[in-house]
């Protein structure tokens, strides 16, 4: 089997690729503004808007070139200081995804909530705040529909609890709130001692996140508090403190509890990772400023946290390889990029190929480029999130750190091995090519599957799978941590986690089955399998074993799978139909099969399986 030049289909198991291309005489409209900087670049990019948007007076949508250019223009306002007067001028003309946040508080929150709109809009979001009355006791009597519950607490008002009492009290109150709602809960309580924060985190209340405000407070020093303004704001926190909290809430903390994370950052080269143009200045002539060092180091940290890096550049591949070989002062190495697209062709097309290589959707990619015209052109055809790379790269870092979905509350072991796991796909492809049969392939890989029943310690990872998996996701239920925890509470075997390892890598927890029992049936409410576990022909064995584990000794008569058609889960639905031996209607909401049929399915004997309670 030979590798061809055409991009592989999604989840095909194709390996890490590096593509170059010959110089093309047709460089596309973005070539017009290559090398331009500052205001000139934005004016030139307006020409591109007029070519892409035939109705210039219509409000641009999130994926329009106007959105990309507005994001670039807003960066300085939002992330260099942040001034309320200037924030008020940042009015979005695009649609926003609304999130409803219910706020339980004992001090003024409005100085924070009123500062969030511009930051949220930059990320395509809008928050609808339902703010309760002042309540030191946190009785949680605030009613109203919400997507997220937020607790905003000035612990300084609660000294009567005495030393060491705050942490325990907070655990008790948040547990009470958890019993009332399955929403993610964000707790912003200040000041909290390290012991109290540790006590809260040790309680491990599912789907609950405590923000440590101490770093923000320390960064502002004596500007953190302003009792002078408490008369009008209702809080001791200063205007500057509230702005800082608003920025983090809107860009990082709230999106991280409610939305799927971003999976990759695609970066340009010239003017982005260094100052200069490789084709003109040569490898030794491009300038690695201290700001660009900071940017490369930050990208490296994103990579360590499990966010994939990709390189996308209009250059000669040989020049790029020379660059990374010669410039040992670059913190990033070429091998740090899980996919490399270097050519003179259209960047949108290159980005699609990157997404295929990385087995992710383009909507989970962040594109960083110094050319606003390129950003606009790509954003006009793909739902990527864009960041304008600045000449002072510390500004680029500031913007990048506020792209929603890049901040994560927890980094799992799966996150940390993602890059290496993807690289192992390359070797698996080689093994596949040399294998005589599917069993021979699996035997060579020494595949091991572990099935964990009611695994509380993996709740966060299971919720992440439900949130992130778009392709092999049958019901698209997007269950969160608290909802999965409730399933486990009802009956541990309602939730089965699947872990996968072979001799090339340990992929960690890559699948989850969530269901419940009725008298005669097993109801599967959610089945998600991570893309990086696919392509090893294990799906049938995974599902069969997981269902047997879930059923236990009380064998049901039938299994009912909940289904929901999404934009990208067609192949998973087709696979299930094949597994069940039925034809699936497009609009089918369930699929039933006799449990006897499942018990009759063979699990490859070369796969080692373990079941852990």
């Amino acid at each position, binding site marked *: 089997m030979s590798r061809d030049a055409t991009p592989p289909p999604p989840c095909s198991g194709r390996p890490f690729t590096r593509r170059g291309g010959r110089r093309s005489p047709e460089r596309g409209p973005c070539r017009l503004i290559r090398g331009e900087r500052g205001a000139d670049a934005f004016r030139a990019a307006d020409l591109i808007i007029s070519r892409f948007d035939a109705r210039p007076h219509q409000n641009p949508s999130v994926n329009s070139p106007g959105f990309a250019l507005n994001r670039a223009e807003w960066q300085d306002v939002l992330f260099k200081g942040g*001034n*309320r*007067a*200037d924030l*008020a*001028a940042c009015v979005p003309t695009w649609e926003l995804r609304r999130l409803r946040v219910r706020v339980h508080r004992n*001090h*003024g*929150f*409005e*100085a924070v*909530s*009123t500062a969030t709109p511009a930051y949220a809009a930059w990320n395509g979001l809008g928050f*609808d*705040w*339902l*703010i*309760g*009355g*002042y309540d030191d006791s946190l009785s949680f009597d605030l009613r109203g529909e919400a997507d997220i519950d937020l607790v905003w607490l000035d612990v300084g008002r609660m000294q009567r609890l005495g030393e060491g009492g705050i942490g325990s009290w907070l655990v008790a109150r948040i547990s009470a709130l958890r019993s009332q709602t399955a929403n993610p809960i964000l707790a912003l309580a200040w000041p909290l001692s390290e012991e109290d924060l540790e006590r809260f985190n040790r309680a491990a209340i599912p789907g609950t996140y405590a923000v440590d405000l101490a770093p923000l407070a320390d960064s502002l020093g004596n500007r953190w508090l302003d009792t*002078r*303004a*408490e*008369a*009008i*704001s*209702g*809080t001791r926190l200063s*205007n500057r403190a509230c702005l800082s909290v608003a920025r983090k809430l809107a860009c990082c903390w709230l999106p991280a509890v409610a939305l799927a994370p971003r999976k990759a950052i695609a970066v340009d080269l010239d003017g982005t990772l260094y100052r200069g143009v490789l084709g003109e200045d040569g490898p030794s002539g491009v300038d690695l400023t201290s700001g660009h060092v900071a940017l490369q180091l930050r990208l490296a940290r994103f990579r360590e946290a499990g966010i994939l890096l990709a390189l996308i550049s209009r250059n000669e591949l040989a020049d790029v390889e020379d660059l990374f070989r010669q410039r040992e002062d670059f913190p990033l190495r070429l091998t740090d990029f899980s996919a490399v697209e270097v050519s003179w062709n259209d960047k949108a097309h290159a980005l699609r190929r990157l997404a295929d290589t990385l087995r992710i959707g383009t909507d989970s990619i962040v594109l960083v480029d110094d050319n606003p015209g390129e950003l606009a052109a790509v954003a006009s055809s793909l739902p990527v999130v864009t960041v304008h790379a600045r000449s002072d790269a510390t500004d680029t870092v500031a913007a990048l750190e506020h792209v929603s979905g890049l901040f994560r509350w927890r980094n799992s072991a799966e996150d940390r091995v993602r890059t290496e796991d993807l690289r192992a796909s390359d070797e698996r492809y080689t093994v596949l090519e040399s294998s005589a049969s599917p069993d021979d392939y699996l035997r060579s890989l020494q595949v091991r599957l572990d099935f964990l029943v009611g695994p509380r310690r993996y709740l966060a990872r299971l919720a992440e799978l439900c949130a992130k998996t778009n392709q092999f996701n049958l019901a698209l239920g997007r269950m969160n941590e608290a909802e999965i925890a409730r399933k486990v509470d009802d009956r541990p075997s309602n939730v089965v986690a699947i872990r996968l390892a072979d001799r090339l890598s340990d992929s960690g927890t890559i699948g989850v089955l969530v269901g419940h029992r009725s008298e005669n049936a097993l109801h599967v409410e959610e089945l998600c399998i991570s893309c990086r576990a696919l392509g090893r022909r294990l799906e049938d064995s995974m599902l069969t074993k997981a269902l047997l584990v879930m059923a236990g000794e009380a064998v049901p008569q039938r299994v009912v799978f909940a289904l929901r058609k999404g934009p990208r889960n067609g192949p998973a639905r087709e696979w299930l139909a094949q597994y069940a031996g039925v034809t699936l209607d497009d609009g089918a909401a369930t699929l039933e099969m006799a449990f006897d049929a499942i018990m009759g399915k063979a699990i490859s004997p070369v796969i080692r399986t373990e079941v852990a309670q």
Partner: protein
Amino acid sequence: MSATRLPRGTNSALAGSSAAAKPQAGEDHTSDATSQMETEVQDLLQRILGLQGLPSARLIRVDIEAWDSLKHMEIVFALEDRYGVQFDEAEFPTLDATDTIASALQRHLAA
């Protein structure tokens, strides 16, 4: 929707308005500076109150329903951010019209 009740510690003085300070007759330079300051303040008020595009008459808090305690807080903070000043707590209630705000800012900036 957030409640627009007055925050903790607020007293009734915040809801009222003080007598507006009249600009002093004087040199053209002072008059121009005052006019420029009032124009800037007017623009900021319109932006925060969502009154952009409307006729730019002098804005007075008691006449504007949208100028509640919440908006007042935003206005004070925006003014402090924009001009790098810090008003005394006693001044907050007096910042209730375009011209009184402009006068207060000029006093702080001249200090």
